């Protein structure tokens, strides 16, 4: 079974994101970029399935600017076998990504696609479910445990208030949650091996997909700064302030 693992290049989780001064987006120039942490978990899960003999080949896919090849290279160093870069300078939105991935899935015929439950840049949490809908495949989102038994995929999902177990027919879609696994370090020998692994570059047009944005970003703003609180001297003062200033009681 082939596993397809989409990996997104995002602003590193350690960087404090800054909004561009013209409000059109967040600043990415000169900022450290890394693989979306949920996608790292996806690569790790795929590598573990390969180590268990469940998977035969892992294909890492990234979509966007040529620099996304670096994110693919990281996946290759973790253990993916080859990469596909869908190169475009169009601002890719979840539906476009899902359509492009669906086109790659039609070509590669993977038994499983493992995505992150969300990307830490825009937190849309949309690509996985959209891809499942486009392909008509079952999906196990927010996965915290994955096992393959008798050609079925057992997925434990983290839902509000507990865990839900679902059994899916293959091919299927998984989106990863934080607790699914702890991604490994890419070792030096594997970093060196990754240099020789192939990355194929394709354009959206080659896949017959128009990636043009369907949504318009009106403006991007930082969350409003919270006003400093005040210390009250007594309960009476608190009650009076709640009544007369905050007007909540």
């Amino acid at each position, binding site marked *: 079974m082939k596993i397809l693992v989409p990996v997104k290049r995002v602003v590193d989780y350690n960087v404090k994101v800054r909004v561009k001064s013209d409000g059109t987006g967040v600043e990415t120039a000169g900022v450290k970029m890394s693989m979306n942490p949920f996608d790292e978990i996806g690569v790790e899960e795929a590598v573990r399935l390969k180590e268990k003999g469940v998977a035969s080949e892992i294909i890492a896919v990234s979509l966007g600017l040529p620099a996304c090849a*670096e994110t693919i*290279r*990281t996946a290759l*160093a973790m253990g993916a076998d080859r990469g596909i870069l869908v190169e475009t300078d169009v601002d890719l939105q979840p539906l476009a990504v899902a359509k492009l991935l669906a086109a790659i899935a039609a070509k590669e015929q993977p038994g499983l696609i493992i995505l992150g439950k969300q990307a830490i840049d825009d937190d849309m949490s949309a690509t996985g479910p959209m891809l499942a809908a486009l392909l008509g495949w079952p999906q196990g989102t927010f996965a915290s445990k994955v096992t393959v038994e008798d050609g079925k995929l057992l997925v434990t999902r983290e839902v509000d208030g507990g865990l839900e177990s679902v059994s899916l027919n293959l091919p299927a879609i998984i989106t990863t949650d934080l607790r699914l696994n702890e991604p490994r*370090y*890419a*070792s*030096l*020998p*594997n*970093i*060196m091996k*990754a*240099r020789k692994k192939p990355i194929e570059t394709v354009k959206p047009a080659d896949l017959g997909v128009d990636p043009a944005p369907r949504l318009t970003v009106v403006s991007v703003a930082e969350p409003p700064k919270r006003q400093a609180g005040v210390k009250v001297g007594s309960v009476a003062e608190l009650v009076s302030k709640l009544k007369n200033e905050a007007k909540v009681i």
Partner: protein
Amino acid sequence: MMFELAEEHRMLKDLVAKFVDQELIPLEPAALARETRGEKMGLSHDEEARLHAKCKELGLWGLDVPEQFGGANLPAVALMAVNEELGRTCIPFFFPPDSPNLHMLMAACNEDQKQRYMLPYASGDKKSAIAISEPGAGGDPSGMTTRAVKDGDEWVINGRKIWVSRVPQVDFTIVMARVGEGKRHEGITAFLVDKGTPGFIIEREIPMIGGQRTYELVFDNLRLPDAQVLGTIGQGFAPMQLRLTVRRLQMGAWCTGMAVRALDMMISQAKQRTTFGVKLSDRQAVQWWIADAATRIHACRLMVLHAAAKQDSGGDVRTEASMVKLVATELAQDVIDHAMQTFGAMGMTRELPLQMMMQKVRTMRIYEGPSEVHRMVIARRLIDGRK
């Protein structure tokens, strides 16, 4: 001209950064507490064994060892990226083997010595020290007076060395001694001395700042067969110089990393601490420390990478190595000092790594040649090169 690390070297740097953050920095509080109690600050045998196992698993081993000897054969630029990351912690740790003696052994070993010393050293199975400095000749090692005299098939060494690091933990020491009546570089010869060789006496242990220890050695009719001469008799200065150059570049990278850590700590503290109703990060005095630190770190990193790239392409980098060693140690010293100042009394505690980094960098302005000696060397090359 490219000023960026290759992709795989950037990935290696990320790997080492993770290793430092997750494996080494967490060991700092315990190591600093040990040092405060007057115990050895270095890692325990168990800690080191655990880290070494992890390093082997990650392939962080033999980084600059040639492939035919089982290493990763990385160029100096990649080693600089690795050492910058290692510099961010005050935990004394490196990925075996330590580079300087490796390069000296590779340059000078004959076939038999390759088997007996270089290969076990390259694989990390044997450790080594080097004894150059003497009570009367430190910054100017060509004034050394330890002598080796031929007696039949053997060499007999008499003399004294001082400030030699690591001696009791190592399997062999490279001892520099003079053969014949020559002056300055003339006659300087390297010898391989196994641990426990009669006449090789560890006179005393000298506690140093920075959690370090050095040793004074006495050679009392230390007898060695011809097979222990490393390289050509009388031509020991050049391979020793190569070794010093490797260490100086490495120190440039370490110091860059030390400054990076100190700057990082300085910024977090400045953003957090309010005095007189104003955040320290809003004070120009602190902002200038931050700006100057970042600017000098950038300059120093480029100097280190340039020298390493030049060395990788076969260039002579002795002058650059002097410049790098000088700039980097003084940079780290200043940035750590400003970070300590930003932390106020907290910066004076023995619980923070800053004071340990400060002690270390203080010793680094002396060993591998004091700053003043490097300034002299740089100036001399410039002055002598003028018609």
